């Protein structure tokens, strides 16, 4: 008989720049080793996942990460007085710091388990530390520098060749071809995501992504490389295909071994025409396209739950190449009383 776990999932904002919550839930629903009851955790009343009643059994609003860990813990204490959450999937970069801090407390006091990287793993792969990270682990990373003001942008550009990539500390990246463009991008990104902003060397090539899981003991649980086939104006993949790339899998395996990475991750890599791989970013969570890994034969989401619950874990050795995902937009019709309930009571 299979166990039935109550699993809480954040990132249910299935919008044009979607969070990974809905694809994580879809993978959970397809798990063969356990059944699930899904608790959606939302930050805003218009997150589409709240109203996907075929995927989500109950939804609770949670405080924004900026409210701090105490507020978050108190909200979980309340939710746990009603539900019996066994496992939690945090799916946003911006909330991970709080959840990593709360990991032990949530487990010991409320019985909620997670599989998340350590604070050291989380911080060291941060965009602002990535160049150093690459040096420490023998992986090529484009040269980058941090800036805190527009004046500093001009000063730093003296030592860089155009084009460059201007990046926010959590999200967003824009290519700049001139000094003026670099400052414009800096102003826009710093206003939205705060400081510092990163100026990174531009590497021409093909962007490849890997969705994978590390077991925390240096072993790769699974990894599926994907190439984006269609990109939205926000730079998000709207379609992609699994590819066969042994070198990229080896690079992933090496990184997981070196860093003892714990939990899901996404690697963003540029492959140059002469077959060199540059690590552009490591996202410390599942990406929004992670359901493709399930479609390609690796239910990595299921493996993460099994790691957290102390069950036997499947270490995937293969996946199907040539599997595509094609995203679509879908209008749901929602009754006002549902919107009212989540807005007023913070649960639905």
């Amino acid at each position: 008989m299979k166990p039935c776990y109550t699993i809480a999932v954040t990132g249910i904002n299935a919008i044009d720049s979607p969070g990974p919550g809905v694809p994580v839930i879809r993978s959970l629903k397809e798990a063969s080793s356990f059944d699930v009851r899904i608790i959606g955790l939302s930050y805003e009343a218009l997150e589409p996942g709240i109203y996907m009643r075929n995927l989500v059994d109950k939804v609770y609003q949670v405080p924004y990460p900026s409210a701090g860990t105490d507020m978050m813990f108190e909200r979980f204490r309340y939710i746990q007085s009603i539900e019996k959450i066994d496992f939690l999937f945090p799916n946003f970069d911006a909330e991970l710091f709080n959840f990593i801090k709360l990991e032990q407390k949530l487990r010991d006091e409320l019985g909620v388990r997670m599989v998340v990287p350590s604070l050291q793993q989380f911080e060291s792969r941060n965009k602002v530390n990535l160049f150093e990270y690459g040096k420490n682990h023998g992986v090529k990373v484009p040269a980058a520098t941090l800036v805190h003001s527009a004046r500093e942008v001009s000063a730093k550009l003296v030592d860089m060749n155009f084009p460059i990539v201007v990046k926010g500390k959590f999200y967003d990246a824009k290519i700049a071809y001139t000094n003026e463009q670099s400052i414009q991008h800096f102003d826009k990104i710093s206003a939205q995501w705060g400081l510092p902003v990163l100026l990174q060397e531009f590497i021409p090539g093909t962007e490849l992504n890997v969705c994978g899981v590390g077991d925390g003991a240096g072993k790769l649980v699974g990894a599926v490389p994907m190439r984006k086939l269609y990109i939205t104006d926000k730079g998000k993949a709207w379609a992609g295909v699994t590819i066969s790339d042994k070198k990229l899998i080896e690079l992933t395996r090496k990184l997981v071994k070196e860093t003892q990475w714990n939990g899901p991750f996404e690697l963003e890599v540029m492959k140059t025409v002469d077959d060199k791989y540059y690590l552009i970013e490591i996202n410390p969570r599942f990406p929004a396209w992670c359901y493709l890994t399930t479609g390609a034969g690796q239910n990595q989401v299921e493996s993460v739950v099994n790691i957290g619950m102390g069950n036997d874990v499947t270490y995937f050795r293969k996946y199907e190449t040539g599997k595509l995902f094609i995203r679509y937009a879908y209008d749901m019709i929602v009754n006002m009383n549902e919107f009212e309930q989540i807005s007023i009571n913070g649960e639905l």
Partner: protein
Amino acid sequence: MKLKKDIAISDSGFLFNPSSGDSYTANPIATEILKYMQSGFSNEQIIVSIMESYDVERSTIEKDLFDLESMLSNYKLTR
């Protein structure tokens, strides 16, 4: 010229390169030639086979084969 081993070619002329994720469509003659290439035929064997099946001059096949090979090489589908 040899095609990369892992290139998938369907009977309808759809090509998929699993290492890049790129896909292509080939017309029926190109599909036939690609299948010959996958079977390890030399250029001479391909030319003879096509001449046996179609009423076509050797110089036309040679030119078409050269064009196809350039295209395959350009798309990095050869080894």
